[in-house]
């Protein structure tokens, strides 16, 4: 109904304005709640308790608004809903981390996207109408990768007192409109030959048909219901089987595989993991080597609304989360963007853990696609990727872990060092030795611990070179102590001269300091005759600091 028909606009004077304003205020509140409800639908699903509760509140309130203020006509734009030139809802996605993509999740956009331009809530609106309207909106909300169309859903549910105006009534995709307006039409070739049988006498035939018409119609309707009650997955599988039997050509299989990928993507978007699994099974049957399906999967899955999927997963029960990640493992490399998005966006530790586990399984044979994640701007994603690389292990992950070991964030570097423990020692050693210069104490200690598992001459040489380096004194104290403490395990007997030097450094003027006792403890820990000899000599050193350090070390040994 147009605005002229609204009582608020009909009556002269200030009262109508006030009424219109009141209607706008009331409707704005309703719209805000509706927008909030839509976010809940995205995050929790349509059937979640919170979602249903809010929907029922909206269902109750809308007829009351229409009853109170008369017909309400809303203009729909991508960013706003407008009642009589007064905006009643403006999409606020300015703080959305996804930037402009955040608009796609707003009520305004969901309404506008499929061509809806004006909504009319008319007098007599019932709660059933309101519920039908909201259900259609909820079904169409994730339509970026599905087959739901809001205008058609409204048409299907046919709420009696909700009218709408939509653009593109011809409804074929705009891409087809770019064609030349009228090319020569294709002439039709008729494929039903003229039957040889003589024409029937319709009257006689009708007597025959009419006799059993009711029974046949009932049987038809029953069979129709049966056909349509069959689950979509079963119908799809049966059709794929039939099509391949009738058309076994490779090009048909190729087209089939690519089309089935769209089904998998849609089911994934909707969080219907069982259906997505069925789709993947069919894809694997049609295109076992994934010649066609592989690129199609990459394309389709990278275009999904990962934020919506992540939100849904965050609120799903554990079983569904497990199904999702099991599917991702089966999909393999094409699932990478989706898993990464989940890693980056999920607020649940369990979900992120599931994603990392899925990545570890999915890329166990070839971790090279994970290389792109090492340069991801989100440190958490890089850290989790490093964890995944550690789970995968083997020589292939070493270059990636070495790269992660140079990451600007210490948390990533620590994770990289931890992960290097999962790869063969000889291959991990260069990356671990690079950590000897790390300014991060935890990373340094972890690297030293890893290196201590399989010490060798190169490790000893590298450690001794750090200790003897002129810059050693300039390093933070705790780092110096860590390096000294590691010398017995990593350098063995070769460390004795360096430790002796550290112990006696300063000569007559040696002062108490942390390195000297540390060197003495290291010598004591080493426990070789040469090391003990150095300590015994130290007990008689001219400098009191040296004598004390050696005494303490030896006392500690005896005490132990």
């Amino acid at each position, binding site marked *: 109904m147009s605005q002229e028909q609204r009582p608020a606009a009909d009556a002269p004077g200030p009262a109508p304005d006030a009424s219109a304003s009141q209607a706008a205020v009331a409707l704005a509140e309703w719209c805000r709640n509706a927008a909030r409800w839509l976010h809940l639908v995205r995050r929790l699903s349509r059937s979640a308790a919170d979602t249903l509760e809010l929907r029922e509140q909206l269902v109750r309130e809308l007829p009351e608004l229409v009853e109170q203020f008369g017909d309400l006509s809303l203009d729909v734009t991508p960013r706003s809903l407008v009642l009589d030139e007064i905006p009643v809802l403006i999409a606020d996605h300015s703080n959305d981390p996804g930037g402009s993509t955040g608009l796609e999740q707003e009520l305004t956009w969901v309404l506008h996207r499929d061509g809806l331009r004006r909504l009319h809530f008319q007098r007599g609106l019932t709660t059933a109408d309101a519920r039908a309207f909201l259900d259609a909106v909820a079904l169409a909300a994730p339509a970026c990768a599905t087959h739901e169309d809001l205008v058609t859903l409204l048409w299907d549910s046919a709420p009696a007192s909700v009218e709408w105006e939509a653009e593109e009534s011809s409804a074929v995709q705009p891409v087809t409109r770019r064609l030349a307006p009228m090319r020569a039409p294709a002439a*039709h070739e008729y494929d039903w030959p003229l039957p040889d049988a003589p024409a029937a006498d319709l009257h006689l035939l*009708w007597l025959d048909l009419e006799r059993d018409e009711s029974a046949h119609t009932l049987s038809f309707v029953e069979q129709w219901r049966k056909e349509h009650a069959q689950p979509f997955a079963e119908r*799809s599988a049966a059709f794929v089987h039939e099509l391949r039997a009738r058309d076994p050509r490779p090009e048909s299989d190729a087209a089939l595989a690519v089309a089935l990928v769209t089904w998998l993507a849609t089911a994934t978007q909707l969080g219907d993991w069982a259906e997505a699994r069925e789709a993947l099974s069919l894809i694997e049957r049609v295109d076992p080597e994934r010649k066609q399906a592989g690129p199609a999967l990459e394309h389709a899955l990278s275009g999904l609304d990962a934020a919506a999927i992540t939100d849904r997963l965050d609120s799903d029960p554990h079983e569904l989360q497990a199904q999702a990640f099991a599917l991702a493992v089966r999909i393999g490399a094409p699932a990478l963007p989706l898993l990464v998005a989940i890693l980056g966006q999920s607020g649940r530790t369990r979900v992120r853990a599931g994603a990392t586990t899925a990545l570890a399984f999915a890329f166990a044979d070839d971790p090279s696609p994970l290389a792109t994640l090492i340069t991801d701007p989100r440190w958490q994603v890089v850290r989790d990727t490093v964890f995944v690389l550690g789970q995968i292990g083997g020589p292939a992950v070493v270059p990636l872990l070495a790269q992660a070991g140079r990451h600007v964030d210490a948390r990533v570097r620590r994770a990289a060092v931890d992960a290097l423990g999962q790869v063969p020692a000889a291959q991990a050693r260069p990356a671990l030795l690079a950590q000897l210069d790390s300014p991060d104490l935890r990373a340094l200690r972890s690297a030293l611990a890893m290196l201590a598992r399989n010490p060798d001459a190169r490790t000893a040489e590298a450690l001794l070179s750090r200790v003897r380096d002129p810059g050693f004194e300039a390093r933070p104290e705790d780092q110096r102590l860590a390096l000294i403490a590691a010398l017995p395990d990593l350098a063995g007997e070769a460390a004795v001269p360096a430790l002796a030097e550290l112990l006696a450094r300063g000569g007559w003027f040696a002062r108490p300091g942390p390195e000297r006792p540390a060197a003495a403890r290291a010598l004591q820990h080493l426990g070789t005759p040469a090391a003990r000899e150095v300590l015994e000599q130290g007990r008689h050193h001219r400098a009191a600091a040296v004598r004390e350090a050696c005494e303490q070390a030896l006392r500690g040994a005896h005490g132990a």
Partner: protein
Amino acid sequence: MSTPEPPLPSDETPRLDPPPDATREAWDALHRGARELHLPGALERGVELRHTRRCVQPMVDALLSGERVAATLANVEPGGGAAVHAAHTALAALCVAHALELPRASLADLGVAALLHDIGRGRTAGGAAMEHTREGVRCVLRCTTWSPLSLLVMQVALTHHLDRDAPLAAQVVSAADAYVSLLARETGEEPWLSPAGALARVLAALRTRWHPAIPSALVRALGFYPPGQVVELDDGSCVRACSPAADDPARPWIARLADARGLPVPAWASTPTPLPARRHVVRALPRHEWPEVARARPAA
């Protein structure tokens, strides 16, 4: 025997009787949708079937509101393009499905499937006669996403020439396709069948291909005297059948063509009306017996 007339040079559909506004708008939407879908290269650019439903919805609503939409089938004639054939088949299928009391949403889906049932035709380079059914599936596979609607469209495209084994939707489209095809068929050796002749041949030779409810629904949808058929009444006058009465396929709505003396009825007096209770149809006239005014092909 009537002289075969040359096919129309364009894809436009001629109108015999101006249909009611709702029917006209619904037909325009349906035909426009069919035309866009059948434009060369349209499918290659991608089609979202969920939007294509909207082309069919006005026709479904017109049908359910009691509009005599079947009257538009009077315009079926030889030489129409693929889009016109698709739209006519969709309309006939909707009428049959409505007679079978299918629900509203199913009607819309069926209409979309009927619009695309022969989409593979013209895309095959020779090969078997039914190659277009497989090519049709490939077209749909390539142009849209896998969904319940696209699955239905593919089922119909693949199986609408099968006997009995096909899904029911495909059988309904098959019956509609057979009628529209025979009605539009005209070759040098074969005369252009009258609507009643086409229906009689379809039922005589093909009815066993389909579920037994479909032939009777086809008769309910079209009547004994399908839209466009010229019949002689018991008073000797000559009328054109527009669409069947809802409860009696033997009593069509009629538009008068010639009175009992053979004199043409002026246009203002030929508005479609129900067959008067005191009158009945004596016989359906073969096309060569149609009066000149009925045989004349109106301008597009």
